[in-house]
C-alpha cells in the first residue's frame, strides 16, 4: 500500500450555482502535518467536508485511505475536531462521556461499553493532559480545555488521520501555543497524518510540515517554509501578506511589494 492518505484529483464543488472549489488536486502523504490556509469563504471547510465524506463532489475523484471519501471502511480511521464550539453548555455529559462518544464507532451499534473502552478513553485523556478533569461537566471547561477534550474524542477511535477545522477559534493566545505544541507531539507519538484548517497564517507555518493555500483553487502546496516566502501567497489573499514567524526571537516577514 502506498503512503498516500488523501488523493484528490480535479475536484469541483458548487453550491447554489456558484463555485466553492475549482479544479483542486491535492495529495497528502502519511505522517504529514498539513496546514490548510486561505481567506474566509475560500472553501477550506468545504474541502475538509469532502475529505470527511460529508459533501459530495460535483466532479473529480477523492480517495481517502485508498477508498472513496465517506466509505464505511474508513469509519474510525479519521478523527474530526469541528470548528464551532457546541451550542448547549448545559448538555448533561462529563468530559469522560464526551471522549467515550468518539469510541462509539469501535464499540458498534447494539454493543455495550467495555472496561477496555474505558481504559482507552482514559489513555486519550492522559494524552491531552485532561484526565484530572474527567468527571467535570463539559460545559464547565474553558475553550482551550474543551478543544483538548475534543481532540481526545477524535483520538478515541484510534484514528490514523486527524482533521481539525479552525480548532483555536475562541481559545486564548497562550492556550493556542500549547495546543499546537500538543498536536505536534501527538502527530509523532501516534504516527498521525494531520490536516489543520486555519486562517491564522502567522502561527501555522511554525507547526506544520506542509502548507496548502486555498481560495476556490488550490494555489500552492509545499513545504511550510517555502510556501511562506512565495509570491503566490499574495494571490490567494489578494493583498500584501504580513507573516509573523515564531522562532527564538519572533520576527516579521513581510512580502515585497510589487506594483
Amino acid at each position, binding site marked *: 500500500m502506498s503512503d498516500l492518505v488523501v488523493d484528490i484529483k480535479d475536484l469541483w464543488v458548487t453550491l447554489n450555482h456558484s463555485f466553492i472549489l475549482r479544479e483542486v488536486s491535492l495529495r497528502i502523504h502519511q505522517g504529514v502535518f498539513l496546514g490548510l490556509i486561505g481567506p474566509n469563504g475560500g472553501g477550506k471547510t468545504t474541502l475538509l467536508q469532502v475529505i470527511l465524506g460529508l459533501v459530495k463532489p460535483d466532479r473529480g475523484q477523492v480517495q481517502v485511505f485508498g477508498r472513496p471519501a465517506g466509505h464505511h471502511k474508513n469509519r474510525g480511521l479519521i478523527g*474530526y475536531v469541528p470548528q464551532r464550539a457546541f451550542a448547549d453548555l448545559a448538555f448533561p455529559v462529563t468530559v469522560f462521556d464526551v471522549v467515550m462518544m468518539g469510541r*462509539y464507532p469501535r464499540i458498534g451499534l447494539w454493543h455495550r461499553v467495555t472496561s477496555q473502552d474505558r481504559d482507552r478513553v482514559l489513555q486519550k485523556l492522559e494524552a491531552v493532559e485532561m484526565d484530572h478533569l474527567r468527571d467535570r461537566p463539559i460545559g464547565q471547561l474553558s475553550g482551550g480545555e474543551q478543544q483538548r477534550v475534543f481532540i481526545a474524542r477524535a483520538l478515541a477511535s484510534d484514528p490514523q488521520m486527524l482533521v481539525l477545522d479552525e480548532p483555536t477559534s475562541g481559545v486564548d493566545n497562550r492556550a493556542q501555543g500549547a495546543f499546537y505544541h500538543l498536536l505536534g507531539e501527538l502527530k509523532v507519538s501516534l504516527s498521525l497524518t494531520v490536516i489543520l484548517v486555519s486562517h491564522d497564517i502567522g502561527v501555522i507555518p511554525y507547526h506544520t510540515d506542509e502548507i496548502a493555500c486555498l481560495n476556490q483553487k488550490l494555489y500552492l502546496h509545499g513545504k511550510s517554509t517555502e510556501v511562506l516566502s512565495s509570491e503566490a501567497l499574495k494571490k490567494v489573499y489578494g493583498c500584501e501578506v504580513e507573516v509573523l514567524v515564531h522562532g527564538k526571537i519572533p520576527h516579521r516577514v513581510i512580502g515585497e511589494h510589487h506594483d
Partner: protein
Amino acid sequence: MIEIFQLGFMQRALVAGIFIAALCALFSVFVVLKRLSFIGVGISHSAFGGVALGFLLGINPTITAILFAGATALLIGFVNRQGRLHEDTAIGIFFALNMALGILFIGLSRSYNVDLFGYLFGNILAITRGDVVLVLIVAPVIFAVILSLFKELLFLSFDEEVARVSGVAVSPVYYFFLLAMAVTIVIAIKLIGIVLVSALLVIPAAAARQFTTNYRGLALCSVGIGVVSTVAGLFLSCWLNLASGATIVLFAGVLFCVSLLYVRLRGI
C-alpha cells in the same frame, strides 16, 4: 381512596399509564436535548387526521392514526434533513394539513362522534382491555430499542456532524427515533389526548434537567417524574372527577415549577 384502584377502568388506566409515561419520559430526554419539542406537537396533531379517517372508514382508529403519525414524522424528518425548509415551517404545514383532513373526514362521516373527543382530550374510561394489551406489548419493545440506541442518540444530540463522521448511522437512527415516537404518541393519545400528549414528551426531561447534570441521572429522573405525574394525575382526576389527560399534564407542570424553584433556591 383505595377503592378507586379497585375499579376496572382505573386499573387499566394505571397499567397503561405507567408504561406510556415511562416511555414518553425516555423520549423526552432526547426531545429536550435535541430540541424536538415541536416535532412532538406536529406528530401528535397529525394523528387526528388518522383517527378521523378510521372513524369514517370504520377501521380501528389506532391503525390509521399510526399510519398518519408515522408518515408525518418521516416527512418532517425528511424536510429537516434536506435543509431547504426550516423544520418549524414543515411542522406548521403538516400540523395544519392533518388537522384539516381530520375535520374534513368528520364532516364526511356525518355523525357526531363522542369517541373523537376522547382521542382529542383523553378519556380513561375509553381504555379497553385490548388497549392495555397493545401498550404492554408495544411499550417494552420500543423502550428496549431506544435504550439500546441510547449512546448513538446521545452522540447525535450532542454533535450530529461529528457523530456522522465517526460512522454513526445518523439518518437511519434519527428516522427510526421519529417513527418510534409516532407509535408512542398514538398509543398514548387515548389516555392523554392528542392535544396534550406532547407535554409528556417535554416536561419530564425538562424538569429532570434541573435536578441532574449527567445523562444517566437525567433519564432515570425523567422516567420517575413521568410515572409519578401519571399515577398522581390519574388518582386526582378520578378522586376530584377531572379530565385525566389534563390533570396528568398539570401535575407534571407543577413538578416542573418545583424543579425551577429548586434551582433558584440552590442557586442562592
